[in-house]
């Protein structure tokens, strides 16, 4: 379909070279790069800005925004989330039923006869393998997923071939939501044992609705519908993800009919795609904050009043209006409306802009004018470089001596670093989905001495916000936690970014609100292509 359309388009120019073009075209067809069978299949070609953040691979343990785009189609969890519902709903997937048999033990019945992409059948051993390796960090690679989601999970116990027991270290109120993250996807143990970790990472065998046909880690991933999928079959025959790092190239590829779907379009690049018949834009304000983590232990930024001044002097309205063309969101507190009732608190405001007070705080702090080094990643976050330059100016105005420093990778020894840009996406729709996944004691800011709240109430409040089973108590302690965090100013929220997807106008797709940002949902009922 796509290929044919492209050729027709290219025949449009009626000029002298047309005959040459035509001859070459026939040659191209003879070469047969686009076979007719492929051309008629229902295919979705996706252009992605990036494929990974350092370690390529499609196994479940990767937790990056880049890999989540592809993982969702390949892997299947014991429990799946309904992508759009509010409040959040869980659907039985590889597990058919589950119940708590003790406060720290959940028993799950597995679905019978589920096939993996390699044709093997899923059983309890596969589940135990897939989850235990990450929970028990049998490889350094699993460290990220374990620290972010599973530090309270102990082990999977095999009861019989279709029954497993999930053991947590302490009662886990978030057990379902965590088990439905793609990091808890189930892969084939048999396959892993056969080909080894490295190969299984580049060509994973899962139980999701699409299977991997080929993966070139820097260029292209081809998925095909998995016909033995346990549930409703996938709507697409084939999905091709192509790595197109340049924004202009990506937009052109879409307009030119080379791909059908692209993402990562910042607001000031939308122009060329607006008001077109063949393309439609889909904007989204991500449940995600761009954040500056400020070292609370560095001799300069260890000064709390200075950090508070830095926090108060950022004109977020201006950044959102200027950089994000008014389309991003100014944060009021570290929370997102996607949590839904009752945990989202629209009335809660902790983040403020008050340059006068900031000036005063700088004076009170006894700050001696030592340079505050704003280290930024010039290419990682959208507008990261521009925001750094603008914020440096704002800080300068309240009397802070800022020095900009761009860096491509942070060193393992973070002692010298004062400020590190970061993002706080909502990994799952719960306050902890954006908080615990970043600011817990398992996260790098704590482990690497960046985030060390001094307030004596912190630990007790955190306990309740994270582990309490009483919703009211969680809510109350979370509110207090956010207020303390604001006082400590160990992190500075900047804004919620806005981005667009663009797709062929006959594609129907919407952003899944219950999944983490950037997850692409191409399963049954989640995308429609063509008539």
């Amino acid at each position, binding site marked *: 379909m796509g290929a044919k359309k*492209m050729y027709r*388009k*290219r025949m*449009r*120019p009626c000029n002298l070279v047309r005959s040459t073009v035509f001859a*070459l075209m026939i*040659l*191209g067809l003879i*070469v047969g*790069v*686009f076979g007719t069978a492929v051309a008629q299949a229902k295919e979705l070609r996706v*252009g992605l800005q990036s494929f990974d*953040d*350092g*370690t*390529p*691979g499609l196994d479940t343990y990767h937790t990056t925004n880049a890999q989540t785009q592809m993982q969702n189609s390949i892997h299947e969890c014991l429990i799946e989330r309904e992508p759009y519902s509010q409040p959040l709903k869980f659907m039985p997937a590889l597990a058919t039923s589950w119940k708590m048999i003790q406060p720290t033990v959940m028993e799950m019945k597995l679905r019978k006869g589920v096939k993996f992409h390699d044709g093997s059948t899923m059983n309890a051993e596969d589940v135990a393998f897939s989850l235990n390796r990450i929970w028990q*960090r049998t490889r*350094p690679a699993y*460290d*990220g997923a374990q*620290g972010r989601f599973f530090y309270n999970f102990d082990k999977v116990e095999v009861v019989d071939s279709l029954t497993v027991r999930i053991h947590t270290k302490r009662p886990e109120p978030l057990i379902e939501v965590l088990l439905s993250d793609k990091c808890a996807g189930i892969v084939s143990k048999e396959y892993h044992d056969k080909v080894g970790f*490295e*190969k299984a*990472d*580049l060509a994973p065998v899962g139980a999701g609705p699409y299977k991997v046909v080929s993966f*070139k*880690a*820097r*260029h*292209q991933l081809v998925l095909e519908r998995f016909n033995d999928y346990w549930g409703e079959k996938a709507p697409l025959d084939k999905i091709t993800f*192509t*790595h*197109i*790092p*340049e924004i*202009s*190239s*990506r*937009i*052109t*590829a879409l*307009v*030119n*009919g*080379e*791909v059908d779907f692209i993402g990562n379009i910042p607001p000031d690049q939308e122009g*060329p795609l607006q008001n077109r018949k063949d393309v439609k834009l889909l904007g989204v304000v991500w449940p995600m904050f761009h954040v500056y983590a400020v070292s609370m232990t560095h001799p300069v930024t260890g000064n709390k009043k200075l950090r508070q001044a830095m926090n108060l002097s950022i004109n977020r309205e201006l950044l959102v209006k200027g950089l994000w063309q008014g389309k991003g969101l100014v944060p009021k507190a570290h929370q997102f409306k996607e949590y839904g009732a009752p945990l989202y608190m629209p009335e809660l405001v902790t983040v403020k802009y008050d340059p006068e007070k900031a000036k005063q705080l700088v004076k009170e702090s006894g700050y001696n004018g030592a340079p505050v080094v704003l280290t930024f990643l010039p290419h990682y976050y959208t507008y990261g470089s521009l925001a750094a330059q603008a914020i440096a100016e704002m800080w300068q105005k309240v009397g802070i001596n800022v020095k900009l420093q761009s860096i*491509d*990778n*942070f*060193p*393992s020894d*973070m002692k010298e670093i004062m400020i590190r840009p970061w993002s706080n996406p909502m990994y799952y729709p719960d306050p902890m989905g954006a908080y615990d996944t970043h600011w817990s004691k398992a*996260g*790098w800011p704590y*482990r*690497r001495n960046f985030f060390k709240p001094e307030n004596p109430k912190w630990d007790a409040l955190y306990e309740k916000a994270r582990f309490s089973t009483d919703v009211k108590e969680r809510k109350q302690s979370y509110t207090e936690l956010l207020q303390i965090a604001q006082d400590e100013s160990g992190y500075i929220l900047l804004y919620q970014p806005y981005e667009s997807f663009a797709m062929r106008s006959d594609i129907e797709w919407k952003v899944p609100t219950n999944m983490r940002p950037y997850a692409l949902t191409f399963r049954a009922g989640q995308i429609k292509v063509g008539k």
Partner: protein
Amino acid sequence: MLKFIGWRFGRALLTVFAVLVAVFLAARLTGNPLDVMYPDGLPPDQEQRLLVQYGLDKTVPEQFVNYVRDLFQGNFGISLREKRPVADMYAEDIGATLKLAGCSFLLSVIFGIPMGMIGALKRRTGAGRLVMSVAFLGYAVPHFIIALSLILIFGFYLHWLPSTGNATIWHYILPTITLAAHRFASIARHTRSSLLDVLSQDFMRTARAKGLEERVVIFKHAMRNSLIPVVTILGLQIAGLINGSIIVETVFSWPGIGRLFVGAVMKRDFPVLQFGVICFAAIVVLVNFMVDILYVIIDPRIRTEA
């Protein structure tokens, strides 16, 4: 003669070895690859485990000895990022880069040589200068601006040509032009200066004095003689073309080794970086070596003390 070849060969080997040492050390100076692979850091025990696994826990001389030993056993290393043999990675991607380089090389010769001829033959006229200016213009615009402009014009606005990947011959057109644009200037200038040198020599005067037609003089005598140095240089430029593809491959999402190279530096993938640089050096040194030998064979006047 044999002594010269021996000397020359020794020098070539020494150069490759020097490159090997340099790239090995330089790679390790860029920092710890684990910082890139695990941006959020690892607990010390896990980090140690990985360093041992990659052999990075040893001292640099030890690592070097191990690496050279592996090289001689035909084991070129495993990519830290992709966790597969680097030789496979290069083998997969070199084709795309070579094809693109070849096409653009052809194109730049087809246009560059006539441009240089016009530049030389009409060198005192406006036409000559204009042609050379056009050639230089291709060089004056940064690669990625040419590439993006072409994409915008022929992809975004006209929908004539595809802009990403290398699936069909159509995909070759824009990247080929981009890469060739930078070569026109070089080839045109070489041709022009070489032709000018020949034109000023005595046998040209003789040829004209014999009453030969000007066209015959130019094409039969002048061009033939002036092309020899041009061709020699062109042959060597193929290596350069591969290099120029770093940017072109990024803009056109071309699955070649240029991106692999840059990625290896940026992501500190030592085995990929080392293997790429050493291969490149070996090819260049080999070509250089053969050219020197050829020179001696062709022109016995060049006597050597190596």
